[in-house]
């Protein structure tokens, strides 16, 4: 194996022969040219970052490397030898493993089996004891402790992601591809992950790293490649790249980095929550949200933020505590009631909970308020429906040939935008955003942030759950920190610094709690 020569931990040097070379790759899906004349080289012991807006073609390129798609044109060479990667299985045999944007586990298999099943020989006989032990070890190295015996069903995205990573490193890979592995990880876990990436680099593994989080890219990458509209714009050593220049390459224009949202004048209180609890999930959560205010929810994955959101939206109603809307006590037993009160919840899991992927963009956007598009006889006014969809397509710059396309065909980021449109369409008074910019590129991210600003300015109260620390700090008027289902404190914009929020999230003593 190419890696063999490097285990002594010699620093990686660009002189080494490339593990994987892709030249002049092209791939087209119906109308969209997803990739055009792309050439990319991965060297042992190199962390190669791949940047690009939503729909730039990153995932497509990766799916080609892993044999999920076949390129229309172009050549792939492994350690110098031309190869065709016909299937995921072949890719694995070549030592190419990938962690995808959305974790793909077997909900009915336990964690350990999920880790090992991909590379067990067909003839193998399960030695459960050993399997559990090995799995536990690998996860420990990740700094995650999961019950390796419990089925994957019901794991949080974070938990699932950790298992995915464990799966990938449990086979000894030459090329490890990570398509937005950090999208659902909190800063804490990102740190753990990066430790691991560095180890792998030491071992001479070539790593292709896709992320929309600038700061991460600049922390970990050796080389930075930028895509735009399916074309490769630039490949440079990190030293020669600045965030600004990279972004310029990505969007083809100058875009300001994330900058703090101007604080708005406090309106009167819309929502006030007191001692909200749900048996065994979260306890005594209390906060107010004023008109035009953005309340950030920070915390590690699994802290229970989503559950608070779900309780407010009536999916998993709270078991005790009070919710007051405009001073009136309300009970929210179902999403229907929540929507009637003007509460909207944008889920963190767009594929399962946020969207109906096989249905058209228009149908998805009109779904929550379908009534509005019905005639007296209950028939759908499709014209109206499409018009509305078109409006949102412009407003959020959704990249699609037309609004009748199945949402599933859109790239991650564009799906996110459709989901936002869907909920803005309900004209909410209180908007709950759960990981609103997960898997969204800088361009779109900026747009979403701007959008959040506008909505707040319109007087909507916004509850923003996010694991993206800079985002939380920049967007929120106040930050509520949760940890293991408990509220650790609420920080005003002034108090809320990276360190304090983190410490609270990690459960260190914190006196500044509100």
């Amino acid at each position, binding site marked *: 194996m190419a890696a063999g020569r490097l285990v002594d931990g010699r620093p990686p040097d660009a002189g080494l022969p490339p593990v994987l070379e892709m030249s002049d790759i092209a791939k087209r899906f119906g109308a969209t040219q997803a990739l055009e004349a792309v050439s990319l080289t991965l060297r042992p012991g190199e962390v190669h970052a791949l940047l690009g807006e939503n729909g730039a073609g990153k995932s497509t390129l990766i799916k080609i490397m892993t044999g999920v798609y076949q390129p229309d044109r172009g050549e792939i060479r492994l350690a110098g030898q031309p190869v065709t990667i016909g299937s*995921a299985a072949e890719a694995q045999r070549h030592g190419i493993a990938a962690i995808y944007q959305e974790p793909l*586990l077997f909900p009915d298999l336990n964690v350990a089996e999920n880790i090992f099943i991909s590379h067990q020989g067909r003839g193998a006989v399960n030695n459960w004891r050993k399997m559990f032990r090995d799995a536990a070890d690998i996860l420990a190295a990740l700094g995650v402790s*999961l019950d390796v*015996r419990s089925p994957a069903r019901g794991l949080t995205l974070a938990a699932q992601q950790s298992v995915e990573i464990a799966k990938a490193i449990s086979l000894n890979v030459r090329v490890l591809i990570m398509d937005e592995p950090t999208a659902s990880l909190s800063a804490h876990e990102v740190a753990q992950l990066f430790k691991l990436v560095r180890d792998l680099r030491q071992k001479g593994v070539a790593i292709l790293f896709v992320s929309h989080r600038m700061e*991460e890219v600049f922390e970990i990458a050796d080389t930075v490649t930028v895509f735009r509209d399916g074309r490769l714009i630039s490949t440079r050593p990190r030293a020669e790249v600045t965030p600004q220049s990279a972004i310029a390459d990505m969007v083809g224009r100058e875009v300001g980095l994330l900058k703090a949202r101007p604080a708005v004048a406090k309106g009167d209180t819309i929502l006030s929550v007191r001692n909200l609890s749900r048996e065994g999930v979260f306890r005594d959560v209390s906060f107010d949200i004023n008109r035009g205010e953005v309340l950030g929810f920070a915390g590690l994955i699994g802290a229970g933020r989503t559950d608070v959101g779900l309780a407010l939206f009536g999916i998993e109603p709270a078991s005790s505590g009070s919710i007051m809307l405009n001073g009136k006590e309300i009970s929210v037993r179902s999403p229907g009631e929540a929507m009637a009160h003007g509460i909207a919840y944008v889920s963190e899991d767009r594929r399962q909970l946020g969207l109906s992927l096989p249905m058209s963009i228009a149908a998805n956007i009109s779904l929550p308020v379908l009534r509005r598009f019905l005639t007296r006889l209950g028939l759908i006014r499709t014209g109206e429906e499409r018009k509305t969809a078109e409006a949102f397509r412009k407003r959020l710059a959704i990249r699609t040939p037309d609004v009748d396309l199945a949402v599933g065909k859109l790239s991650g980021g564009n799906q996110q935008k459709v989901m936002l449109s869907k909920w803005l369409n309900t004209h909410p008074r209180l908007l709950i955003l759960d990981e609103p910019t997960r898997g969204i590129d800088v361009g779109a991210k900026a747009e979403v942030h701007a959008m959040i600003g506008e909505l707040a300015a319109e007087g909507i109260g916004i509850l923003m759950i996010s694991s993206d620390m800079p985002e939380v700090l920049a967007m929120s008027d106040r930050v509520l920190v949760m940890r293991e289902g408990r509220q650790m404190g609420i920080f005003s914009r002034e108090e809320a610094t990276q360190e304090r929020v*983190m410490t609270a999230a990690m459960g260190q003593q914190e006196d500044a709690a509100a």
Partner: protein
Amino acid sequence: MRWLQRHVRPEQVRELSLLILIIVAVIIFGSLISGYYTARTFNRIASSVAIITVVAAGQTLVVLTRNIDLSVGSIVGFTAYFTGMIVAANNGLPAIVVVLIAIGMGMAMGIVNGVIVAWGGVPSIIVTLGTLAIYRGLLIDYSGAKTITTESLPKWLVDLPTTELFYIGSIDMRAIVVIAIAVVIVFQLATSLLAFFRRFYAIGSNPDAAALIGLPAQRMVFTAFVLSGALSGLAGFMTLARFGNITVVAAQGLELQSVAAVVVGGVNIFGGSGTIFGAMLGAVMIGTLEQSLFRLGISEFWRDAVLGLLILLAVASDAVILNRLRALWARSGMTLVDKPATLPTTGEATR
């Protein structure tokens, strides 16, 4: 609780609850029916459940892969009839050959199902709805409306169902029952220990993921149908041995019975979870009810009504129990360990 989680997996809990249900049922019937706790009662239930159990085992494998095999009834009938015809023609055939013929026949029909489902990309319910009719149709066509009679069969075959292999206390274990138990044990072990069989679970659990890690979904589905066919073939042989007289309606409706057994046995009809053992319990549950209700003197006409209700209750009670447990499992599933020592280094990068 923790201990339980370590040592019992949810689907096992499912089986436990079913086992308890069966025991409760037996106790109730025992108190209502005089002379219920006898070797005879056991024999009745055991041998009437044996055949359906073997079929249900195959059905389980298919269902695990998110498919269903509705043709089993026809396959059993077909193999029972034509195996019978062949043995009748040459009584000299050694037992093993006869069994292999039956299994082979079933396998062949399973292969047809499997190929069309796996590589033809036709939903299994459509394929097997079709072959359900086709296999039975062929049977009627080629049977020439003759009935296979005990007369024409070799003695060993006719006597097989009542041959006692060994005794457990006063209970004599009959060949048919032993075959069924053997099948269950073999496949239960295989599906819990062999990587190859674990893949049935993987594919049913999340086809996309299975594809991404390069599991040969098509081959697996094909295998499932072939095995289901083979086991149905074996069941066909058992049917021939047990009932001796085989008409073209033999084993009609077995498909629904096997699905019922599988469903009651807690095999997730949408694939991915459930066990052979569970399916057997399902069959036993239903068999016990059928037999005992009759003994209770419940009228012919009341039986189906009661049976339907009891099946529903079996499914419901165990589903409710299971959901509770699922939640518990999930909740305590993950605990992220805090390492204050390694405060996030991302901090620097953002400044």
